[in-house]
């Protein structure tokens, strides 16, 4: 069951990523990325990280990607046609990297065949209670710092996005 989930979702995630890179339309690319992220949630679930899996869907698919889609729609038109004109790209990375990916995957696969399976997860592993204890105990400082990072990002995005409106009627 676990292996089944891992292989299916892993393959789907890889597929989503590849399709995203290949898509010309930014909207479709974003949707493939959503697909990849949902598959990633499946991989997390297979790795006994249920809380992380659901967070993955909630944060990535539900929030970050919606933000992306929103921005793509806001910058309608020109964004989509940008690359259509000249697809002859810098060729060497395009040629070199996919084989590298395949190589890495096959390498992992081959060595994985010999290696033993991941140890079974203990009871309550990855449950909210355990994560909460870690987050608010051992990693409290990091937790607070990351909150500040988010706050700064929020304010930064707001400052960048805010347009001073002085329209004639206001």
């Amino acid at each position, binding site marked *: 069951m676990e292996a089944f989930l891992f292989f299916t979702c892993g393959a789907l995630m890889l597929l989503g990523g590849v399709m995203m890179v290949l898509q010309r339309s930014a909207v479709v690319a974003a949707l493939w990325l959503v697909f990849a992220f949902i598959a990633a949630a499946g991989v997390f679930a297979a790795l006994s*990280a249920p809380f992380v899996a659901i967070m993955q869907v909630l944060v990535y698919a539900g929030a970050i990607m919606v933000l992306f889609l929103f921005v793509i729609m806001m910058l309608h038109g*020109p964004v989509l046609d940008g690359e259509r004109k000249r697809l002859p790209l810098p060729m060497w990375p*395009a040629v070199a990297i996919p084989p590298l990916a395949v190589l890495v*995957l096959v390498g992992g696969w081959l060595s994985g065949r010999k290696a033993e399976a991941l140890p079974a997860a203990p009871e309550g592993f990855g449950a909210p209670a355990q994560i909460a204890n870690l987050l608010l105990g051992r*990693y409290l400082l990091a937790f607070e710092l990351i909150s500040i990072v988010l706050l700064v990002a929020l304010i930064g995005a707001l400052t960048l996005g805010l347009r001073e409106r002085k329209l004639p009627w206001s």
Partner: protein
Amino acid sequence: MVVSLNLCLGLAAAIFVVGMTGFVVRRNTLVMLMCIELMLSSVNLVFAAFSRQLGDASGHVFVLMNFAVAAAEAAIGLAMLVEIYRRRRTVDVDELKSLME
């Protein structure tokens, strides 16, 4: 067929490479940002895999931190992108290299 640590790392690396390829190949800043998200996600896989291997949920905490970083990165990145678009009317990196010249 079993799920081994190496396999997890292989998958993560492959996804990372896909993201990296996209980042290098694509000229659309929006898609490049998405590729960064994908790369971050592959790192998360590694965290989760090691967490499971070591039986320590600290990895999950790091993944959550990573989510926050990704969210912050997306928010700031997109805000900058919108601002760039507003000034230069393009999100194509090839046309956004005024500092190079």
